[in-house]
């Protein structure tokens, strides 16, 4: 999200603050997901938990380039997108636990968090299912002249869904302000995408005349810079854009996916976790550029963990909705 520029600050200072803000957000998502994992394994969280750990730089880099009232749609792996767009930790956890204080009064759960206040049109448990919604929101923005853009986050698995190509066709025909962001973490559940995707991803969008590029999704500086440039272009009326962020999910498809050796190797996982961790990569850079020292980053980490812990407690203590509420909100 953009913040007002303080003229007394030097550009370098402002930039340093911006990277530190993004670092904090990545830490927050990381810590949120670790707590979700913990809640799930302690049987406090019902349902499914699809963790975003390893992919934090994408949500943060993209959402930092958006205005608060810009729209996003998200996926079953959506906690990171919701948080990066401005969701509060406590109401997020409450939703994960099915509590009334949650973003959707406990009716949505992990895979359906939505929040009009932060432009979040909703996470979606149908793979590729929100492509229409994001594109329709872009249509509204254009017709109502609101200057908003819509970002549609999806995984590489959604590249197999026809809906995506139907709406890309219309978005390109009608120059709609929508950005399709593919988080290519290589796997569709338990299948490598070399078995599910033909050809080249970026040229698929190019077939509709939609400009696209593939970037390193572990480098938040790269994601942010690219997204900012794309958002400006799309907001300016250039029509839709496509961005592939190459990434990796450090954990299983969901929390219960622990025996993974039949579809991916330990070595591969270790390589990504040790050499391609987006949080560590940004920390190393901040230190090498002398924008922060290790102690400052550690302090930030401790603060974030304390916030997360407080939010978890809030959610655990929060009451469930009354059973009589089951009939509420079916019709507006």
């Amino acid at each position, binding site marked *: 999200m953009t913040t007002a520029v303080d003229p007394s600050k030097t550009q370098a200072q402002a930039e340093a603050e911006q990277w530190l803000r993004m670092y904090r957000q990545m830490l927050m998502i990381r810590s949120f997901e670790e707590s979700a994992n913990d809640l799930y394994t302690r049987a406090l969280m019902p349902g499914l938990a699809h963790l975003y750990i390893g992919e934090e730089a994408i949500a943060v880099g993209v959402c930092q380039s958006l205005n608060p009232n810009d729209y996003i749609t998200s996926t079953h792996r959506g906690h990171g997108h919701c948080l990066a767009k401005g969701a509060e930790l406590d109401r997020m956890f409450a939703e994960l636990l099915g509590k009334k204080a949650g*973003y959707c009064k406990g009716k949505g759960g992990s895979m*359906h968090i939505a929040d009009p206040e932060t432009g979040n049109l*909703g996470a979606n448990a149908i793979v590729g299912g929100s492509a*229409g919604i994001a594109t*329709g929101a872009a249509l509204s923005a254009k017709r109502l002249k609101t200057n908003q853009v819509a970002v549609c986050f999806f995984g590489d698995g959604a590249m197999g869904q026809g*809906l995506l190509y139907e709406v890309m066709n219309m978005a390109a025909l009608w120059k709609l302000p929508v950005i399709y962001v593919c988080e290519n973490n290589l796997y569709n559940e338990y299948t490598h995408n070399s078995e599910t995707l033909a050809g080249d991803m970026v040229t698929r969008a190019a077939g509709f005349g939609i400009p696209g590029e593939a970037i390193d999704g572990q480098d938040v500086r790269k994601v942010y810079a690219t997204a900012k440039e794309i958002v400006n272009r799309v907001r300016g009326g250039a029509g839709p854009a496509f961005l592939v962020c190459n990434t990796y999910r450090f954990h299983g498809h969901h929390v219960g996916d622990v025996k993974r050796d039949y579809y991916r190797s330990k070595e591969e996982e270790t390589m990504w976790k040790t050499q391609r961790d987006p949080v560590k990569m940004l920390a190393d850079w901040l230190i090498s550029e002398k924008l922060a020292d290790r102690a400052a980053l550690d302090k930030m980490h401790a603060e974030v963990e304390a916030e997360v812990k407080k939010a978890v407690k809030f959610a655990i203590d929060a009451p469930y909705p009354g059973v009589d509420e089951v009939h509420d909100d079916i019709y507006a």
Partner: protein
Amino acid sequence: MPETRELTLGEAVREALAEEMRRDSTVFICGEDIAEAGTVFKVLSGLVDEFGPERVLDTPISEPGFTGMAVGAAMTGMRPVVDIMFGDFSTLVMDQMVNQAAKVHYMSGGKWKVPMVMRATLGASRRSAAQHSQSLHAWFCHIPGLKVVLPSTPYDAKGLMKTAIRDENPVVFFEDKMMYKLKGPVPPEDYTIPLGLADVKRKGDDVTIVATSSMVQVALGAATMLDAQGISAEVIDPRTLWPLDEETILESVKKTARAIVVDEGYFRYGATAEIASVIAEKCFFDLDWPVKRIGAMHVPIPFSPPLEDATVPTEQMVFDAARNMFE
């Protein structure tokens, strides 16, 4: 006496859409061949001249795509009306209607709303064969979060369409393609008909015939035949299958003690099953005869004219069913 005119059902739908588009600039229509062509049934002819191509939006042949976009547009300040050329193609948009449109309000704990209308045709007997002749409205009635409307007269079509557009929820609106030329009185002024209010199309004392869409005409024809036999039939059109006006139906059945339900959807697991079971559950002891259901034959709709005609309920079938109740 207020002024009144005769319009066809198609003209009544068009007038409702035009008036709502004039009234509210966020209403727009999208679908295939709807602008210059005015749809294959010409129902939307001329709208593009008044409202322009941005509000009468010709789309590619992408039913899931434009229906999904309507969901997103509805959530963000517009009131889209989606035109699905033939109701049979609604099968393509099931994810967008069932998993997206119908769920958004509930899953978001009431935070987002989806004020959209999906228009589609239903009905056999145009010799269009199995992929252009189905009546699939019962599918949508099965889904909480959707409302389902089936008008049977031009008057109802106009009033119900206006209500559907102003509703804050996704509404599925089925128009029988054999009824577009059906004429009836339609007042020129603005009026709406609430969703969930049945209409007694004909008063009677001896048997209640609950009929939907084009089956209302079939029921009225059967009622005339029954009159000649001294049997007085009451014909009730629920007008919306969901919400369903149980009260009007049950009141009538309590009076007549006999009920027939006629619908052009498939018989098995269909709209007739639901209405018949509501009657059986709620006024079993008022009944002098088991509830009779009449629906489309359970086959893919065949092309050959005598075969196709055999699949659709007829006046004779309704007459025979009623006669049988008085043997």
